[in-house]
């Protein structure tokens, strides 16, 4: 029993050390996480300005992944922030489970938020119930090519194959081994459109092989990284991929000095040297139209597509990466071809 008491004392001591260490960690954290904090306070002051401006539109977004995922969700948040309006935006992110998202969407509607973005195809089911309950509210839902016949729902989807095609053209121009690797999570959604467009673009512009691996998991970063490694062992010298889990694969690209193509958001922050170009979604192009329609009394009922032509899709090049001669021209030609319809992306 005495030994037990000693043990207890020692453990208590160690535990308090642990707590102190944690506390210290926290305090350093407050200083070191400055960037994040300031970013937030910026957002706060933005919304205050907006309040002061008077004619503020209240918006909310419910999204499946994190708001700064360098991919799907971030693209929408940045687009809303890019709108030339006073907007008070509330965010519920990281909510994949449909019923949780439904609760959040309904909560915003009950709070009287005017425009609610349901940023996930799987949220379509609940919208068929929620949208009719709140006829004064505009719901913006995607990615989807139809509004399910709901009068106060706008739908949106990206022609991801178009930017994929352009990235593919560029990749073929860069590749020396003639082998290009693609990693994806699950064969679904705009990932498929992007990857198919990419393969088409690469194969249309040269004698290249495109190897595609789907790991089967959106979340397994380690597996995604090893999938990229497996490509590299097969002489692949250019990589691309889709989904949040690609961050693991970009790490592999960096480590091995292999060029990378991004999609959904600009992925230069992941590697300033090797990210060649990213297809970026500029949803603001269609959001503007939707909000204008709302101003003129149309609360929904239309579907919008972002394309290279309407500027909703943009290939953002990384100035830090030097393209071989003619590559940029080939890409521009592909963009022009897609816009005038002379190039078929295979979609």
């Amino acid at each position, binding site marked *: 029993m005495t030994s037990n008491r000693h043990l207890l004392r020692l453990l208590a001591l160690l535990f308090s050390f642990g707590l102190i260490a944690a506390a210290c960690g926290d305090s350093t954290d407050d200083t070191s996480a400055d960037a994040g904090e300031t970013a937030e306070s910026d957002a706060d002051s933005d919304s205050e300005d907006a309040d002061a401006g008077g004619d503020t539109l209240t918006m909310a977004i419910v999204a499946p992944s994190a708001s700064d995922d360098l991919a799907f969700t971030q693209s929408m948040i940045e687009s809303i922030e890019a709108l030339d309006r006073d907007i008070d935006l509330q965010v519920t992110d990281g909510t994949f*489970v449909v019923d*949780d998202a439904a609760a959040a969407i309904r909560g915003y509607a*009950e709070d009287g938020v005017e425009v609610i973005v349901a940023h996930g195809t799987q949220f379509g*089911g609940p919208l068929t119930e929620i949208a009719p309950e709140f006829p004064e509210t505009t719901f913006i839902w995607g990615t989807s090519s139809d509004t399910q016949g709901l009068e106060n729902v706008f739908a949106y989807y990206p022609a991801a194959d178009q930017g994929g095609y352009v990235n593919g053209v560029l990749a073929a121009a860069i590749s020396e081994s003639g082998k290009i690797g693609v990693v994806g999570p699950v*064969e679904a*959604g*705009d990932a*498929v459109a992007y990857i198919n467009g990419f393969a088409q673009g690469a194969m249309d512009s040269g004698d290249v092989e495109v190897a595609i691996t789907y790991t089967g998991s959106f979340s397994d970063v380690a597996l995604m990284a090893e999938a990229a490694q497996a490509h590299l062992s097969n002489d692949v010298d250019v990589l691309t991929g889709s989904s949040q889990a690609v961050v693991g694969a970009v790490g592999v690209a960096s480590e091995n000095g292999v060029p990378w193509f991004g999609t959904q958001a600009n992925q230069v922050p992941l590697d300033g040297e090797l990210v060649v170009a990213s297809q970026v979604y500029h949803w603001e192009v269609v959001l503007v139209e939707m909000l204008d329609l709302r101003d003129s009394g149309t609360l929904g009922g239309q579907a919008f597509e972002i394309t290279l032509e309407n500027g909703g899709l943009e290939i953002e090049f990384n100035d830090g990466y030097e393209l071989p001669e003619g590559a940029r021209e080939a890409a521009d030609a592909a963009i022009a071809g897609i816009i005038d319809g002379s190039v078929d992306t295979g979609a």
Partner: protein
Amino acid sequence: MKRFLGASIPLLAAGIAFLFGAIMLLAIGASPWEGLKALLDGAFGSWDRLAATAIKATPLILVGAGITIAFRTSVVNIGGEGQIVAGALLSTSVALAVPDLPGILLVPVVLIAGLVGGAIVGAIPGALKAYASVNEILSTIMLNIVMVQLMNYLLRGPLIDPREVEAGTRIPQTERLSDNASLPNIVPGVRLHLGVLVAVLAAVAVYILLWRTPLGFRLRAVGHSPDAARAAGINVKANITMALSMSGSLGGLAGAILVFGSEGQRMVTDGSSTGFTGSAGFNGIVAALFGGLHPLWTIPSSFLFGALLTGATNLQRVLQVPAPIAIAINGIVVVFVVSSGRIREKLDRMLDARSELDGPSGDDTATAKGASA
């Protein structure tokens, strides 16, 4: 007296856990008071939110009641996630196969399909343990992985919405399931569906099964002492298989209710089990434990955790506090509750002399032992 103290200790543990939650809120710069208000408002603020809490509690009650059966038979079931997925997949397949059956038939049919799916996936580790001495903790964990991949395969292939294939988007989801299969609301004007009632009844049924039937007696005998049970002529192996199978079947039922009580009205995957279950397979263990591994106490305990989970969604919406804080608090609750079992035991001993005055409380002692065993 004893009864009162016995119940108050887990509550105290929960209180301490919430204190930790408040500290976490402070650490990330949010006001605990505002946090608590947002939490309570989200969980109980309106009839619909109360209903959302009950719906969130539903899979926890079912998984929790199932866990009780397993634990009372001295087997561990960590396969809740896989069993939920199995029940969901089988019931979804059935609903896709016979969509035109009238609701009065189709609803019971899909619920039974859920039971069966979960029972099959529960029976595998049960049989492996009973007849091949394979540790059930491991086999249930492994089956969780297998079931997730099976779900991904089925939702991307055989069960995928044909429209997704046509459009080329190939989102791994089924087509919109028949309205006939969707669980009807039980209170007019409030989104409180039949599943909640089914879950509560199932928990009561588990109580009756364990303490009022010969089968339940045999299961508990095996749980108490396999050797003694064997000596008394009980087929230990068959009962172990049975226990995990029944435990799994309740998880499967939870899966069916998740699909057909969902506003999504279809099954969809993000490639993980959490994306579909919301970790109900693990949270159900938490709820069962908090309820002292007693099927009836699992009901209020599940409501408590359901409230925490729905409240956390609101916390995120109102205060921008990431919802995973609820998972972290859940973990702390578990650790404190299991730790307090020892304290409860001591109290039990202290109060033993007086407890005779309280009358027979066999279940209560069993509860205390279960929680600290």
